[in-house]
């Protein structure tokens, strides 16, 4: 079961690697497992046990229910708008930050991470303060017949804020490590700006970009606090998947609530697996260099 570090891996000098005694290892692994059982396995297991409590048919019914379908549609619409916008911004910011030297770079990088330090509720609040019907700008928009807060655009904008740093954050370290030599070589060979980007930079960053977009989508689908502030909580209209889970739960419709939640658990598990696979890939790539 437990394999101590193989000694053969360090020939030719038989070097004894210092490690903890096996009983200590077993104890510490056991404690870690206990923590994971309480905080990861039981909660995730609970979702499925509750979701399937009334059998497959009820499960499918809860998911096929029109309000659930509407919630899924709204969430997917939000993702379809938010992810490309933030991905485009991420690439642009990473290009500016990693391909040029300029004063204030560190400050700009800190500012990009700002949304991570803001409570989701505050992320919703700021858009109510900016665009709500009781504010000057919001009431002007209302006169033009545009409603943002308590309607779909508000959900999109709040999600845009919350998922703002994901792509940039993935790309900046990657592009910093890659440097600018390849692009500069292309330039001296006469390539134009967009050619350099399309043929050199984009192929180099495609996995990082994809990964950033996956993280961005996962958060956009799952965001609760910010969206909860700006959504009108109208079923079939301004309800995203997490908000739908909340409504079902507060109506004591636990089985349906957990059935819808199980969709989000699948999503989380997929994200985690993709992340592990991608990281493996990155590590192999970087060790080849």
């Amino acid at each position, binding site marked *: 079961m437990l394999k101590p570090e193989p000694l053969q891996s360090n020939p030719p000098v038989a070097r004894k690697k*210092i490690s903890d*005694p096996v009983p200590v*290892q077993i104890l510490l*692994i056991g*404690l*870690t497992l206990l923590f994971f059982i309480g905080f*990861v396995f039981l*909660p*995730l297991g*609970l*979702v499925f046990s509750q979701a399937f409590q009334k059998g497959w048919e009820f499960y499918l019914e809860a998911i096929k229910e029109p309000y659930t379908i509407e919630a899924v549609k709204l969430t997917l619409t939000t993702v379809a708008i938010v992810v490309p916008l933030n991905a485009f*911004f991420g690439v*642009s*910011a990473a*290009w*500016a*930050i990693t*391909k*040029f*030297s300029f004063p204030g770079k560190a400050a700009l990088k*800190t500012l990009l991470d*700002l*949304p991570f*330090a*803001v*409570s*989701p*509720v*505050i992320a919703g*609040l700021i858009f109510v*303060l*900016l665009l709500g019907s009781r504010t000057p700008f919001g009431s002007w928009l209302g006169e033009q017949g545009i409603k943002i807060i308590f309607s779909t655009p508000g959900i999109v*904008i709040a999600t*845009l*804020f919350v998922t*703002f740093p994901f792509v940039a954050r993935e790309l900046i370290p990657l592009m910093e490590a890659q440097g600018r030599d390849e692009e*500069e070589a292309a330039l001296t060979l006469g390539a134009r*700006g967009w050619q*350099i*980007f399309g043929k050199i930079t984009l192929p180099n960053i495609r996995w990082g970009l994809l990964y950033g977009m996956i993280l961005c989508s*996962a958060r956009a689908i*799952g*965001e*609760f*606090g910010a969206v909860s*502030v700006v959504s009108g909580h109208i079923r079939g209209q301004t309800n995203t998947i997490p908000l739908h*889970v*909340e409504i079902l*739960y507060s109506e004591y419709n*636990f089985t349906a609530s*957990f059935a819808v*939640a199980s969709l*989000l*658990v699948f*999503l*989380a*598990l997929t994200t*985690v697996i993709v*992340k*592990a696979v991608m990281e493996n890939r990155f590590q192999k790539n970087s060790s080849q260099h």
Partner: protein
Amino acid sequence: MAIFQKKRRNILPGFGLSMGYTVFYLSAVVIVPLSMIFFNAIPMGWEPFLSAVTAPRVLASYKLSFSTAFFAALFDAVAGLLTAWVLVRYRFPGRAVLDALVDIPFALPTAVAGICFATLYSPIGWLGDITTKWNIEVINSPTGIVIALIFIGFPFVVRTLQPVLEELEPEIEESAHCLGATRMQTFRKILLPHLFPALLTGSTLAFARGIGEYGSVIFIAGNLPMKTEIAPLMIMSKLDQYDYNGASAVALVLLVISFSMILLLNAVQEWQQNEYR
């Protein structure tokens, strides 16, 4: 080489375009909306601002948010160190799975985590059974909030510790061993001080995240006034009453505290790095 790099000029195209768009988008999506907090809180004047943020219910919510986030971060420091150590140092079946699952709190929507813990510790839940037997109050109590926040903050500690542990040179421990130190002494006097900056960073991130956390907490907290109302919930209820200034005032205090904590952390890290050089 270093000299050349310093003299290197920006020859690639697209600086104006990419920088311009970056600054524009950053301002439109983040800076301008965030500044609304100041524009709503500052015209209130000092007295009303102070009375809004020192109202007993608001003060109680601050106290609750900070204390629960603190205890959760403390627990995360221990559990995170243990997990990172086990994942980096030991080889056992299922290690890769555990390693991947560390990110679950990042990937799982907070509302789902919220209903999971609320159901798990409800009197008929799998763990609620045990806690009621031992007379531990979890549901509708600060303990429940701490449990939710432990879950949310845990990956911050593990993911900041892992790279540091991986890069630790075995020579350090070997020399300690040769000089006659026991394993425990090596851990306490050599490894722990070395890991401390990362441990502090990870738990501060967990703490900062815990102060603002909403979705995973409100289900288990029960939201009883003066008892289990967290600060973000106070913002929410002020918003429901259209008290925009009051909501901004409560939010401003939270923002200032979390920003200054992160700035302080950056300063500490910079100081640490200079110290090592």
